[in-house]
């Protein structure tokens, strides 16, 4: 086999064109990795928001809390259903009202919707993963609000001790900032449920009811009991399944957009790699002819140029992946299409995103290098050495 050092040094020798081809592939891998990391981030944020022993109940036919409404009288019935873990004073249940408010994004990015959740005081017992990093929980019956750590500082007034408008002429004051394990709750504003009920005129209604189950296996019995009474018109879902469904639209959107852009960039990068390799073959005709004269078979020449082009691709892939990894610290605020409100995502690298990036870069290298390598392998030694 023709030694690898021959390829490496030849690439270094022609460093300008090599660098151009490497950068082309790096750009594609960067875009692709970034979109894959964002999809992973969306899935982690939304898909990671559920717990296996929790169930959510919505009005039948609603696919999210925003469009759902159930009568407050149904909540005790839900709490009494089989499979619900009991807490003090009955089954562990929270009935919440979910609305959106248009707020001004900081940094001149216009208005966007923020999801506001009306919560009961018991929510912090219901969701022990919620942790206050600053301040405290809002008191019942007040205009106090707690905000998720991810939207803190992203909207006007969504900062510690500042006030913002829930809706016209109805303001609330931020008294605490909380984290919730990176889930989408961190992009929400939580206010006392009765305050929201009044402000948004949701008398007698909640958007959803959530229950803690005795065990994840208790869900089937619970679901059957809740959905049995057709007059209530309810639908029960595992919380995990609910959030997974919430992430589907957004994840698909990013995936399609990301792979679409990557695809067109990739065409360019493959063409770039091809041009580079054709130039290399033309430039090294005499060397190829010599190798053939010395007895290297066509296959060796083909392999050598394929390897060379794969080296370019791997270098580009590594560079692009590194650049994408640099996005790890970036928080990306974006509309979640299933709730029409802003959710803050992070670029989350996973072994799969890295493996895909590397695989795609090698594929690009081989695709760009194949025809030039074939041309090199087909050179007739006598002709090649005449040049």
């Amino acid at each position, binding site marked *: 086999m023709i*030694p690898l*050092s021959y390829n490496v040094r030849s690439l270094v020798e022609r460093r300008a064109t090599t660098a151009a081809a490497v950068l082309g592939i790096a750009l594609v891998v960067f875009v692709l990795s970034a979109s894959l990391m964002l999809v992973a981030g969306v899935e982690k944020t939304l898909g990671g928001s559920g717990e296996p022993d929790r169930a959510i109940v919505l009005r039948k036919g609603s696919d999210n809390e925003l469009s759902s409404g159930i009568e407050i009288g149904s909540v005790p019935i839900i709490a009494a259903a089989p499979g619900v873990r009991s807490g003090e004073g009955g089954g562990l249940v929270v009935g919440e009202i979910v609305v959106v408010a248009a707020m001004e994004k900081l940094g001149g990015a216009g208005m966007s919707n923020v999801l506001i959740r009306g919560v009961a005081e018991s929510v912090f017992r219901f969701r022990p993963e919620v942790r206050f990093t600053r301040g405290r929980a809002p008191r019942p019956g007040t205009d106090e609000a707690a905000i998720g750590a991810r939207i803190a500082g992203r909207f006007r007034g969504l900062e510690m001790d500042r006030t913002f408008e829930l809706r016209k002429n109805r303001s609330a004051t931020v008294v605490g900032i909380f984290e919730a394990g990176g889930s989408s709750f961190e992009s929400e504003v939580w206010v006392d449920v009765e305050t929201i009920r009044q402000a948004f005129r949701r008398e007698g209604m909640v958007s959803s009811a959530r229950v803690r189950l005795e065990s994840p296996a208790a869900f089937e019995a619970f679901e059957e009991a809740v959905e049995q009474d057709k007059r209530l018109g309810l639908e029960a879902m595992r919380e995990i399944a609910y959030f997974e469904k919430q992430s589907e639209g957004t994840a698909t959107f990013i995936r399609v957009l990301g792979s679409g852009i990557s695809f067109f960039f990739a065409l360019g990068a493959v063409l770039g790699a091809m041009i580079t390799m054709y130039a290399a073959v033309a430039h090294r005709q005499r060397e190829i002819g*010599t190798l053939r004269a*010395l*007895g290297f078979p066509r296959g060796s020449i083909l392999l050598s140029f394929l390897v060379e082009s794969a080296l370019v691709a791997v270098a580009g892939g590594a560079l692009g992946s590194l650049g994408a990894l640099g996005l790890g610290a970036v928080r990306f605020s974006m509309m979640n299409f299933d709730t029409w409100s802003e959710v803050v995502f992070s670029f989350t690298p996973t072994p799969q995103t890295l493996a895909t990036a590397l695989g795609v870069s090698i594929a690009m290298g081989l695709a760009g290098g194949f025809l030039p390598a074939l041309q090199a392998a087909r050179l007739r030694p*006598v002709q090649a050495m005449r040049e």
Partner: protein
Amino acid sequence: MSEPIVRLRGVRKTFWRDREPVPVLDGLDLDVPEGSFEALMGPSGSGKTTLLNLIAGLDRPTEGSIEVAGQPIHQLPEGALARWRSETIGFVFQSYNLLPVLTAQQNVELPLLLRRLPRAERRKRAETALRIVGLEDRTQHFPRQLSGGQEQRVTIARAIVNDPKILVADEPTGNLDKGSTKDVLDLLARLNKELGKTILMVTHDPHAAERATIIRKLDKGQLA
């Protein structure tokens, strides 16, 4: 006399240019005895390089038979011909044809990569070849760090490293000054005498040709 190491019978070679036949070799017969040092002369365009390429298995005759080192090579398939070349023929080119990005040592090792040899053995053989051509102190130099004469000696080391029976040299001194020409010719003569290599050398230089044991002249498609 022993069997000739190169035997050509009725070799014809016609190139095609713009659909016009360009006859170069016209029914050539040739016997080269083993261990001879032959110089091939003739006017430019007479077909010297063409003939050498045919004998070395780089090109195929339009007609006729070529037997080299007991092997009828005109009918060998491509892959087998490449392997045969690597085992039988050492090449010395006018413009050296060293790979510029590899060191002298690595250039000389190239033909050995076609054999299953341990790394250490490859290194040893390459060092031996470089010692034979007097460049044992230049093993880590790149071609551009060597003089033309030194480059040609590296090429000769590369040509002999596989211990082939035959060396073909197409105007090996064509790019060299007087001193280097003498070094290279001395070296070739030594390889012929001491190692018994059969050498076929194309040259325009009558002084160079005098170093050979046989001088042949090619003209109008025929050997004189």
